[in-house]
């Protein structure tokens, strides 16, 4: 019983604690290192770069070992089965002390998936000064261990149990747990969990190479990707772990008849359940560039003024959408049609996840209506193509552009120029000679700024080209951008003879084109994103 009490106090501190310790992740291989021998072998492999931390590490291990010894007394599938003879009184004492201090220590085989490497942080309270600041990292590559409750419940088993999911207002832990577990499965699927783990293994192996930093650019790239994948994985694992802990707590509370604890835990589950839908959504935007700002480009198809008018409507739809999202919209380049509409235009959409959402719009948009430009009032079909380019952040590697590869031209320049001419037109076009890619900007008020904007567009176009090239080379990242061809129709907008907007990829359909053209395209975006991410694929 004393162990239960210890456990409980530990869990409470976990529930209540908001300090960084709760995020602590433990190196799983530590758990298997119950003998000094194993510790040594670990030392000699993973930790050779951190000699100064050895002492700290040993202390930690000894604490854990004892802790584990305690927990494995309970029947479990743990492969960390250890004989009781290790359980000396000295260890018991340690256990008591440590569990009360270590904030986020997992019970059972607790199992931090080994791909999670990581930083081990030590006790928060009394040993803070010496220990809290000491962290060390290593990158482990061992296979993951499934998280479970003390009774062996896992997320998958919970889902398999098919517990009825009741309304949120029903205080039924099983219902909450089932709903949350389902979400976790969706999230994992969306993150391509299995692939993610493989990729992390690969990156970890890479990071552990002693000569890694010989090529700092490569090393930086690897460690950045590792960091960002890790963060994604950590989030989900922490969420999963939290769920299992609350379930444990509820069982414990029942055993002990502690109604206060039970309702506390139940509430925590409810909060998690409410949170989980948002997390599902976030998981849709887990792509490497999803969080970037972007450029959106619209180009009118064949068909003259009618198509140019349509292109303008599409562009307007995106401007309004972006504004509703709270993004900052700037027109970079706009080529007006002779009579109405636009031939082509580029806007910059600034804000978090702009690219992640906007990428769902790439392709050809088709309009059917009675043309206001046709005096005979006939029905016309027009097309507009949409392209979306991510603006890579400062952290990512950009294509290096050589000044000498550029030709910069003044747009619509005529006459003698210089002092002869007063004009507010200072547009420039930049041509990247080796690729023939060009970029134009005419909406800034100085030539210098037009040039800077055009350069930024050019940079993104070249980055995209490079990404597409790498995607082809690298089978791991087959998320290549579909180049738009006029055959690639994604959505139809019908204004006549009936009214409807239908996405041809998802069959998502709305009967009010006006609101859609007014920027209400979230439904289309989300349904497309979920359809493209939630492929029927084994996620584990």
């Amino acid at each position: 019983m004393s162990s239960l009490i210890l456990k409980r106090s530990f869990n409470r501190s976990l529930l209540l604690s908001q300090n960084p310790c709760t995020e602590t992740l433990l190196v799983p291989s530590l758990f298997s290192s119950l003998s000094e021998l194993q510790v040594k072998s670990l030392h000699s492999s993973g930790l050779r770069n951190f000699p100064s931390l050895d002492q700290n590490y040993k202390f930690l291990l000894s604490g854990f070992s004892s802790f584990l010894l305690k927990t494995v007394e309970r029947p479990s599938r743990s492969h960390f089965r250890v004989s009781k003879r290790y359980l000396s009184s000295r260890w018991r004492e340690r256990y008591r002390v440590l569990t009360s201090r270590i904030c986020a220590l997992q019970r059972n085989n607790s199992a931090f998936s080994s791909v999670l490497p990581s930083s081990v942080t030590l006790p928060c309270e009394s040993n803070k000064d010496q220990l809290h600041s000491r962290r060390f990292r290593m990158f482990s590559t061992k296979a993951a261990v499934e998280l479970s409750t003390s009774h062996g419940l896992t997320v998958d088993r919970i889902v398999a149990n098919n517990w009825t999911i009741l309304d949120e207002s029903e205080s039924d832990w099983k219902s909450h747990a089932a709903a949350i577990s389902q979400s976790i499965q969706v999230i994992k699927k969306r993150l391509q969990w299995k692939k993610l783990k493989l990729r992390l293994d690969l990156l970890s192996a890479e990071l552990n190479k002693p000569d890694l930093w010989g090529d700092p650019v490569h090393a930086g790239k690897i460690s950045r990707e590792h960091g960002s994948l890790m963060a994604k994985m950590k989030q989900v694992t922490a969420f999963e772990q939290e769920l299992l802990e609350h379930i444990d707590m509820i069982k414990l509370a029942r055993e002990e008849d502690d109604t206060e604890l039970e309702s506390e835990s139940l509430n925590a589950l409810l909060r998690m359940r409410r949170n989980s839908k948002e997390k599902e959504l976030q998981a849709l935007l887990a792509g490497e560039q999803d969080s970037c700002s972007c450029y959106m480009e619209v180009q009118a198809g064949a068909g003259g003024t009618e198509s140019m008018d349509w292109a303008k409507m599409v562009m307007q739809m995106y401007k309004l959408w972006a504004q509703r999202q709270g993004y900052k919209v700037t027109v970079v380049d706009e080529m007006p049609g002779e009579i109405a509409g636009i031939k082509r235009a580029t806007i910059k959409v600034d804000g978090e996840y702009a690219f992640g959402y906007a990428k769902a719009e790439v392709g050809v948009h088709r309009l059917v209506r009675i043309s206001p430009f046709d005096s005979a009032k006939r029905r016309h079909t027009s097309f507009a193509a949409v392209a979306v380019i991510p603006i890579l952040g400062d952290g990512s590697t950009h294509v290096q552009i050589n000044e000498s590869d550029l030709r910069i031209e003044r747009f619509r320049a005529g006459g003698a120029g210089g002092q002869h001419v007063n004009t507010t037109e200072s547009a420039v076009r930049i041509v990247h000679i080796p690729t023939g890619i060009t970029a134009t900007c005419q909406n800034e008020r100085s030539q210098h700024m037009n040039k800077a904007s055009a350069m930024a567009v050019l940079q993104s176009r070249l980055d995209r080209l490079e990404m597409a090239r790498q995607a082809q080379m690298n089978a791991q990242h087959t998320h290549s951008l579909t180049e738009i061809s006029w055959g690639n129709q994604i959505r139809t907008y019908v204004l006549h003879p009936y009214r409807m907007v239908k996405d041809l990829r998802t069959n998502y359909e709305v009967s009010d084109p006006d609101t859609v053209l007014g920027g209400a395209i979230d439904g289309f975006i989300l349904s497309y994103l979920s359809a493209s991410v939630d492929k029927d694929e084994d996620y584990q």
Partner: protein
Amino acid sequence: MKLSSSACSIARIPSLFASLCRPICSTSLSLSPSSLKPTTPLFLRPPTFSTSLSELNKWHHWAKNLASSVGSSFVHLDNGPDSTLLCRELRWLLEDSLEDHSLISQLGSQNYHMDVRLRASLDELYVLWRQRIEERRPFQYIVGCEHWRDLVLSVQEGVLIPRPETELIVDLVKDVVLDSRELKEGLWADLGTGSGAIAIGIGRILWSQGRVIATDLSPVAVAVATYNVLRYDLKDMIEVRKGSWFEPLKDVEGKLAGVVSNPPYIPSDDISRLQAEVGQHEPRLALDGGVSGMDDLLHLSNGAVSMLKPGGFFVFETNGEKQCQFLVDYMENNNPGKFCNVNIVSDFAGIQRFVTGFINDKCH
């Protein structure tokens, strides 16, 4: 051809008065140069006027129609702006006049009674836009500023509106300054600084020890340049001096690390055929370069020899290929061996626009 340049600047002083005497500047004429107070650009004025969105809408509608009525008639007349360009200027005028830019996208919406805060009265906006279209008053004088490089410079009648081509002078300086500490920390001169554009552009790329002296003969230019220098908080780095070309620089003879200038270079005979915005509104003193247009360029290139220190750098803007070639020849023939790495650089329209070079450090 080889007129004495001092004679020629004296000869042109009357044109300074001519330009100042135009009604629009008459108030500044009565003031002494030191107390000349530059006008504040529209976008910096306080938003003390208000109107309703529907009134603003009415104005906008009117202004747009006026702009559209121009079509391409100005283009045919004297290569002036077409209505597309004028419509863009109209949007910028709105941007500069409105306290809240987001209103621009709401023009034409239903929210008619909404109060709108303006930096100029609606009546003034009517007057200004009429001046733009009917008198061809340059847009930059209307809003009192010119966006140039990453700067927003105050401009007004009596001061040349800096040209996009001239931005490149700063880039050329940037290139040479990049790999020379001496140039980066040296003393530079911008002769005929006008609004102060080049001087400020250079002041922002030099290291903190670097200095720029900006000179101009026009009191309005001196006042406006001083104002712009203050606005960019560069008064410790840039000194504005009044006087003709090198005259106010006697104390730094032979000490300059760099000399840049965009002097008047339009041949006198061409002035009458200039685009209305230029010929009828910008100061003749800033444009007229004498019969061939090269009076000031030749004077400056001669002066550069004694003013620059060995290894010093210069950039001059010219009227195009003919003047560039002539200047290069002139430098080689008139001061043989004094210059080195003399180069012609084209602008983004592909017109040979600048002559650059160094003072040979061996011949001193």
